[in-house]
């Protein structure tokens, strides 16, 4: 009885694994897989890494990419205190209004504001970037097949154009980007950022930290989700085992 059910679940799992190819990256190149502290059932974010990644975002990425779904108060999740958040927010200028004269005006950011975007609208963004729109990074890790590994690989995947490649103007070669031509030049290199905690800022370290930060912006609920998951499944397994006992007891009466 249970065997049939298990067989079916196995079959369904095989089915699901079969669909999975539709979700992986098109490229034939295998992604550079990393061990991330937040992967796995007991995964947790490394807050120090997230804070370094945030610095990378502010100093390198924020010139072109927004993270409009994050509010400054969310930075609590990467370990900043209320006061630190207040200071960070106040470093940004937010458009507010209209005032009593009907004009829009600038004011200092508050913790309740969302992160200010680098461009007022998508068209301005394209204008400043050769027609390409630098996507918002809040969800980028969930919005790309391969997730955080894809992001890390991408940042480390810049190479010279191969001789036989027909390169378009203004594009750059990347091993992992679908089609291999990307409009963004390699954004990071050794020491482009200096880390406050003294960690050596090699390109791969920077890539690791910014990827972790963006994994957090995409899934800030990750730690709560996994810890609640462990508790819930433990509880459900316990109850199911007890139910198995109850079922057997009830059915024992029958021939």
């Amino acid at each position, binding site marked *: 009885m249970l065997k049939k059910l298990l067989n079916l679940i196995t079959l369904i799992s095989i089915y699901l694994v079969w669909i999975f190819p539709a*979700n992986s990256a*098109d490229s034939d190149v295998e992604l550079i897989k990393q061990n991330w502290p937040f992967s796995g059932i007991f995964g947790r974010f490394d807050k120090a890494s997230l804070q370094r990644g945030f610095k990378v975002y502010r100093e390198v990425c924020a010139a072109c990419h927004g993270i409009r779904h994050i509010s400054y108060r969310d930075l609590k999740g990467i370990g900043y205190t209320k006061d630190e958040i207040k200071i960070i927010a106040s470093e940004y200028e937010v458009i507010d209004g209209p005032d009593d004269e009907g004009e829009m005006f600038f004011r200092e950011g508050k913790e309740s504001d969302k992160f200010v975007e680098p461009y007022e609208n998508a068209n301005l963004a394209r204008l400043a970037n050769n027609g390409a729109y630098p996507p918002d990074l809040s*969800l980028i890790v*969930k919005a790309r097949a391969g997730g955080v590994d894809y992001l890390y690989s991408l940042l480390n995947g810049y190479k010279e154009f191969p001789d036989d490649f027909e390169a378009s103007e203004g594009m750059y070669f990347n091993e992992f980007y679908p089609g291999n031509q990307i409009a963004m030049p390699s954004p990071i290199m050794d020491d482009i950022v200096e880390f406050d905690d003294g960690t050596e800022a090699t390109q791969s370290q920077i890539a690791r930290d910014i990827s972790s930060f963006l994994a957090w912006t995409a899934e800030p609920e990750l730690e709560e989700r996994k810890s609640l*998951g462990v508790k819930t*499944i433990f509880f459900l397994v316990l109850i199911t085992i007890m139910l198995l006992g*109850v079922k057997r007891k009830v059915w024992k009466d029958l021939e």
Partner: protein
Amino acid sequence: MDNIEKSEIKGVLGWIDRRLPIFTFINHNLRDYPTPKNLNYFWNFGSLAGITLVIMIVTGILLAMQYTANTDLAFDSVERIMRDVNNGWLLRYIHMNGASMFFIIVYIHIFRGLYYGSYKSPREILWMLGVVILLLMMATAFMGYVLPWGQMSFWGATVITNLFSAFPVIGDYIVTFLWGGFSVDNPTLNRFFVLHYLLPFVIVGVVFLHLVALHQFGSNNPTGIDVKSEGDTIPFHPYYTVKDYLGLGFFLIFYAILVFFAPNFLGHPDNYIPANPLQTPPHIVPEWYFLPFYAILRAVPDKLMGVLLMFAAVSILFFLPWLDRHKIRSASFRPFYKQFFWLFFIDCIILGWCGAMPAEGIYVLIARIASGYYFLFFLIIMPFLSKFEKISNLPSSISAAVLSEKFEKDSD
């Protein structure tokens, strides 16, 4: 009308029951109800489907309190739910994965029916009501997926609604009418939200009818042999209530693993990109539960025929009780039918896989062969077997079958 004896329940409950017989109803249908004693775990999936429906409605209503159905605001409202609403991420992931669970459950439930001949007389209407529920589920799920207004939401909606233009003469009018405009846009989103909220309650109504039809003759059983005496049955409570709870436990574990540890496994990353009418994703794929039908749609080179065949693939289920008229219900006693059935099952998986692949190269050939077998199974094989499959000796009753099984087990 009916001269039912006055309820003998005492006290307040009895007072209520004599005026509105809820307790008698519950007793008769859920407690004392005689059920075949040999049901296996494949009979759990009906109650699991009902529970999943309730979960979807509850989480859906709570989500609807926070969602905004406007093209400028929809995507952001979903992100607000994920980030700012207390336990919003949990609510969203339960609802999102619940849709997948609902289809897994219902597909297994349908395959159970196919294997054990549950669609045969006198349960034809029970079966057809089930197909209606499947169709309503598909419509509901399709519209629900549009609501977050991601790239797949928008482009999936565009592709599927465009299909209706295949109909000659009136096709374009139908599509414009569906859209409420000249492309998938705000009017479309708004009406999809309303209908997505409405249809589940229609499903509840049809489920009620489905259960009434079920209780006309009671459940089928793995032998396919009718209940002949009381000895063939056991009361629903406590035997099947407790077994259903156990099944629920396993279901919830599987569901929880998805929700908490792989919430986006069955989804598509492109739906985390806000809808952009000016940029088509490289591969437009529907959710996994539509993949077999998507494969059939694309297998046919002609647009209209593809649409008709896709609808036919679901509609053909309505005619099952008349396509298969073999006297024996259960595949347990039909060795030929059994083989073709398992081939059909694998065929559905292959079709699903094809649906996920780009419609080029070898996938086209495989999809065509698989679609061919799909219809062959229903239109040719079933009627053929109805006439020519030998009727082997059946056990005389359910009890006899159960006893002889026990005898075999014990003597091993």
